[in-house]
């Protein structure tokens, strides 16, 4: 009886699960934002430079994300490549647009 009573109280007032949920969501965002600093910015620029030698890219379509896991983290590189590979044309277009 006493334990059930306790659990009842605990259950009604338990705010810890809410805290956990909020933290998990918040941190997944913050890690993404923070991941943009330093290392990831450098990585992104260098990847962009390497790929741009061969393929005309829209720099905004190069995404680099880092996800921290328990034992390993994953670096996710997502590059959108246009179907039209004509580099000079794309660059010329960008110049005109800019």
């Amino acid at each position, binding site marked *: 009886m006493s334990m059930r009573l306790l659990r009842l*109280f*605990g259950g009604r007032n*338990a705010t*810890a699960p809410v805290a956990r949920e909020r*933290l998990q969501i918040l941190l997944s965002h913050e*890690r993404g934002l923070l991941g943009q600093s330093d*290392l990831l910015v450098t990585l992104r620029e260098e990847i962009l430079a390497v790929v741009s030698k061969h393929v005309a890219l829209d720099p905004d379509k190069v995404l680099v994300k880092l996800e921290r896991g*328990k034992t390993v983290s994953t670096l996710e590189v997502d590059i959108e490549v246009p179907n039209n590979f004509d580099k000079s044309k794309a660059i010329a277009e960008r110049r005109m647009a800019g």
Partner: protein
Amino acid sequence: MAKVLVVTSGKGGVGKTTSTAALGAALAQSGQSVVVVDFDVGLRNLDLVMGAERRVVFDLINVVQGVAKLPQALIRDKRLENLWLLPASQTRDKDALTDEGVGRVIGELRSRFDWILCDSPAGIERGATLAMRYADEAVIVTNPEVSSVRDSDRIIGMLDSKTVRAERGERVEKHVLITRYDPARAARGEMLNIDDILEILATPLLGIIPESQDVLKASNVGTPVTLNDADSAPARAYVDASRRLMGEQVAMVVPAERRGFMNRLLGRRAA
């Protein structure tokens, strides 16, 4: 080989200085030679918690700037002969610390001690980054509440990117130390669960220090809690944590309530 360990948190007032003193004393008690270094320039407190405030002559900044030699600034503990303190300056500000100067002092400390415990200031600014800069290991002091966990997450990110080890592609060994854990509030589901904290931070647990009057009593008299009342719950938890730092396997004890059922029901705090 010497180990440099930073005690850090991001958030202020979570128990970094208390933990630095307690872990330092516990390591020294088990025979290791230990120096605790106060990086909280301008707001030093480690000297007070260690009971050495009246013996400070020179400080970290004097040594970094070459005004004093390291042996002149080191203060030997009155109770344990292999425990030393390198105090922070109370008057200067943290801009007086340079990366290169801190590196030199840490290098010198490495040749003299088994353990170099760096008490970080709160925040993520220069003082905190310098305190962690040369660390091999880190104790991330975390209270079981949302803002502390969030700041710990931020600090973990910095340990993985802004330390010398990280820049060399090496790992800083990280441990979470949960402090000010209140078993009564945990039982009522009011406090973040330990498993949840560890899962969120994805970092192993070094220990759980209960909220306790014994911590306050120890700091009142200027004695690390592990020396002041070795039988108290926080002292035992810190000693266990120090043994884990030395690589021992010690079963984790989750602090439990020591109060009557009626008190628990009414949510009264322990006297």
